[in-house]
């Protein structure tokens, strides 16, 4: 199993500002995934972060709004840029086991934008 440390656990931010979420894994992993979970909703994949290459974004998500860094095999950051109240959500990082037979999730970042 993988242990994922995600921070901050929650934040309240002002409209127009940016927040960077950090995700640290206790082992080296090839792919890291960033999900968004709006209140009472399911998980939506934002992007896949691969070390050494640009992140791959899902439909409806763009790099300018959600820039991702992946400097090494154990760490990634997701930035939510120029925030608006619609960005209020829980953001989760996750990693898969070697065969992607299961995902492990960080504890999430609950973001509220005023």
């Amino acid at each position, binding site marked *: 199993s993988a242990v994922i440390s995600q921070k901050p656990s929650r934040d309240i931010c002002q409209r127009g500002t940016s927040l960077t979420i950090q995700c640290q894994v206790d082992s080296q992993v090839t792919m890291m995934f960033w999900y968004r979970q709006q209140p009472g*909703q*399911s998980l939506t994949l934002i992007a*896949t972060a691969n070390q050494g290459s640009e992140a791959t974004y899902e439909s409806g998500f763009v790099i300018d709004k959600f820039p991702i860094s992946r400097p090494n095999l154990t760490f990634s950051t997701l930035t939510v840029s120029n925030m608006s109240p619609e960005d209020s959500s829980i953001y*989760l990082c996750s990693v*898969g086991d070697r065969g*992607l037979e*299961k*995902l492990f999730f*960080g*504890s999430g970042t609950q973001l509220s934008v005023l």
Partner: protein
Amino acid sequence: GQQVMQIPQYQHVQEGEDFTTYCNSSTTLSNIQWYKQRPGGHPVFLIQLVKSGEVKKQKRLTFQFGEAKKNSSLHITATQTTDVGTYFCAAYRGYGNKLVFGAGTILRVKS
């Protein structure tokens, strides 16, 4: 793109009653995974089903994968208050490595 439809959206049961949530896909799935998310928590992996017609049990939880690999179910026998949470099915989209989640079923248990 491939989607998994999950029902019901919400179920409120008396402690001791059974509970079932269903996932359906219009396309054949290579496998299906199930996750549980406790209130205020993050999703936790429960199981993966791969084979047609597969049935797996974890104590009071029974997981099934349909013969056509287009549907799956999670059944909980004699629910307990510790079963409270949201249960998600998830499947990989196409041949890629992107796990797509169903809408989830929220389970509430009255004691």
